[in-house]
């Protein structure tokens, strides 16, 4: 039957109503709680208060629903920095042509845009929204690795998700709670783990947790169906199996594609053990079926086997490129989870990668800072030059990258672009401290941070002087100029901020925020608060 795979799959709009109702009840409870706590509305026998609560919740739900589900396609596309294909580019032109071919084979039922995600990872995803827009996005990495027939199967798979309506359902589910989660994750990676704690963040965090629950609604079956439909359109099960094989062995964009959008992708960006399992719990909690099973089904259609496919693919890769296997890297991201495997180039594109990131190479057991890898150092230098920064001959004692000359409080100091540490000529410190008419006045956060740090340091100092030197070797930082170890100590007995100082070159090194804390200490006369905590900590 023609297109029955599309026609039979009726729009599953009922699930979208379920999402709406879940959200509505959530807001109802929230409004009722707020009303009970702050407004002290009389609940007994007051139908009016119930009515108002209900109306308010309905309004809030409607606004939330409209904001998140109405124009999701452009939100997702913007979030991933995706661009429409460039017709001047040969590979992008092929993508455009293949997309038109897919339109032909589906009988031009619907216009679907396509986008390219500038990422070296290998993945593709589909989005559709309530406005009727639909788009397929594919990463630059996948686009460059696929042959034409393989690309056809991938696009056919994604287009089926859109035409069958299950894409709309997952997009609504993902964006309802996930958009905020996506922004939260982005914030987390860009601000290197420091986010200001505010109620909005708590709300976003709650929504993030809810979005994980939504996976219960999203069935794995739809991936099998989309695979089958892709074969139905392109009549080429082997090409799709080859693509899945390729995807199973590559970096799929973990850390780049937000986890809330994982369910829109052709394969889950995060490699999880659950995805590769079967059974009741795996079926319930996982949004993607095991790649091995998907490949088995496809290969059965083509009457071939996994070993044959693998032998053939390995032979072709051997013939085309006999390059030694690239070293695989793993890196610890700001959320303290290991990401990988990356090739060196892929690792270099991670925005969160800094010289202080812990990385490990291949099968080697030991872990090291990223700046110890010479190739990555070149990359950091390149980043600096791309930002148009003028590097000096001084190197950051922590990251070993060139320091930049920056103006600060009317004088010139040196700063590391990566760890935000500051190097100040010792003679200039009084100038900085004396200038109370500051460009950047003390924030509350900096004041409380300074207070906490000096209190902590006061306690540590007291303990240290009681227990004397315990003989532990301290690691001294090298001086940015002469590379001799720097003296480490407090700025003064009155201001307990740890500094590193080279008395030969006359430089003082402040780690991130330390100089600002010192300024705040002096300006606001902050003293250590040890009145009630002094007795508490036991002596080491």
């Amino acid at each position, binding site marked *: *039957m*023609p*297109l029955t795979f599309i026609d039979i799959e009726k729009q599953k709009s009922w699930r979208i109503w379920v999402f709406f109702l879940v959200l509505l009840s959530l807001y109802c409870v929230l409004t009722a709680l707020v009303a009970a706590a702050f407004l002290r509305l009389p609940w007994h026998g007051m139908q009016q208060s119930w009515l108002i609560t209900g109306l308010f919740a309905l309004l809030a739900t409607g606004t939330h629903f409209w904001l998140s589900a109405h124009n999701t396609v452009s939100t997702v596309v913007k979030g991933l920095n995706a661009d429409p294909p460039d017709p001047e580019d*040969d590979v992008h*032109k*092929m993508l455009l*042509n*293949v997309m*038109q*071919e*897919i339109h*032909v*084979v*589906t*009988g*031009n039922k619907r216009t679907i845009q396509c986008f390219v995600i500038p990422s070296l990872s290998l993945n593709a995803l589909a989005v559709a929204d309530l406005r009727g827009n639909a788009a397929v996005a594919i990463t630059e990495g996948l686009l460059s690795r696929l042959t*034409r027939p393989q690309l*056809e199967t991938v696009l056919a798979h994604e287009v089926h998700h859109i035409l069958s309506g299950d894409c709309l359902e997952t997009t609504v589910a993902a964006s309802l709670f996930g958009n905020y989660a996506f922004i939260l994750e982005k914030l987390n990676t860009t601000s290197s783990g420091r986010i200001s704690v505010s109620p909005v963040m708590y709300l976003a965090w709650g929504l993030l947790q809810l979005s994980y629950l939504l996976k219960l609604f999203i069935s794995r079956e739809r991936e099998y169906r989309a695979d089958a439909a892709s074969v139905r*359109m392109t*009549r080429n099960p082997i090409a799709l199996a080859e693509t899945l094989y390729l995807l199973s062995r590559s970096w799929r964009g973990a850390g780049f594609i937000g986890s809330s959008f994982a369910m829109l992708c052709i394969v889950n960006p995060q490699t999880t053990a659950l995805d590769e399992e079967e059974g009741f719990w795996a079926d319930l909690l996982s949004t993607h079926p095991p790649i091995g099973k998907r490949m088995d089904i496809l290969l059965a259609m083509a009457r071939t086997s996994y070993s044959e496919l693998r032998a053939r693919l390995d032979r072709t890769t051997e013939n085309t490129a006999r390059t030694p296997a690239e070293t695989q890297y793993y890196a610890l991201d700001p959320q303290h989870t290991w990401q990988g495997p990356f090739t060196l180039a892929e690792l270099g594109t991670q925005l969160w990668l800094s010289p202080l990131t812990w990385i490990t190479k291949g099968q080697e057991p030991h872990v090291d800072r990223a700046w110890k890898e010479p190739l990555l150092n070149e990359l950091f230098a390149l980043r600096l030059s791309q930002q148009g920064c003028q590097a000096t001959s001084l190197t950051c004692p922590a990251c070993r990258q060139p320091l930049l000359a920056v103006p600060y409080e009317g004088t010139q100091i040196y700063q590391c672009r990566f760890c935000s540490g500051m190097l100040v000529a010792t003679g200039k410190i009084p100038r900085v401290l004396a200038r109370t008419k500051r460009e950047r006045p003390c924030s509350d956060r900096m004041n409380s941070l300074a207070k906490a740090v000096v209190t902590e340091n006061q306690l540590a100092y007291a303990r240290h002087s009681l227990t004397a030197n315990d003989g532990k070797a301290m690691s001294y930082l090298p001086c940015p100029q002469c590379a001799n170890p720097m003296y480490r100590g407090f700025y003064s007995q009155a201001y307990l901020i740890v500094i590193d100082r080279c008395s030969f070159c006359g430089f003082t090194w402040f780690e991130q925020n330390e100089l600002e804390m010192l300024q705040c200490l002096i300006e606001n006369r902050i003293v250590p608060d040890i009145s009630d905590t002094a007795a508490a900590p036991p002596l080491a």
Partner: protein
Amino acid sequence: MLGWILLAAVGLILVWLVVIYNGIISARNDMQNAWKQIDVQLKRRHDLIPNLVQTIKGAMEFEQDTLEKVVSARTKAVAATTPSSKAVAENMLTQTIGKLFAVMENYPALKSNQNVIQLQEELASTENKIAFARQLYNDLVANFRTRLQVFPNNVVSSLFDFRSGEYFGADEADRAVPAVNLSLRK
């Protein structure tokens, strides 16, 4: 009372007839639309071929014969009208283009020419679109035929004059059973 029941039954039958009739009509329209789509793609191929021939003529002086075959196959394909004659002519054209591409492999200068690369990509895409459009058309023809022939639709369709659709034929050469001599005698 009996009259009312009778009236309701007749009404129901009428509604049912209308539903079946509309289903058949929409299937036929889908099929005809798909046929138009093939036409669009074939037209596009016909437009692209002269461009390609112009571009490569200079570099392929010794292959004038191949080029002429392509041009004449195109002319025949443009002239064909009925689905079956079109299918034959288009298959001829597909074959000659395939040969031309094979011959072009021997000319490194052509393979690196940006114009040729783009034209080849366009033609490859158009070939695919033709194949996909044919696939869709044939699927829709099958659907239309099934609609006409299954019971009770065949009763309704016999009341009206529906002509069943014609498949866009597979390549004759592909369809021919290869002659395999299994005898061991020499």
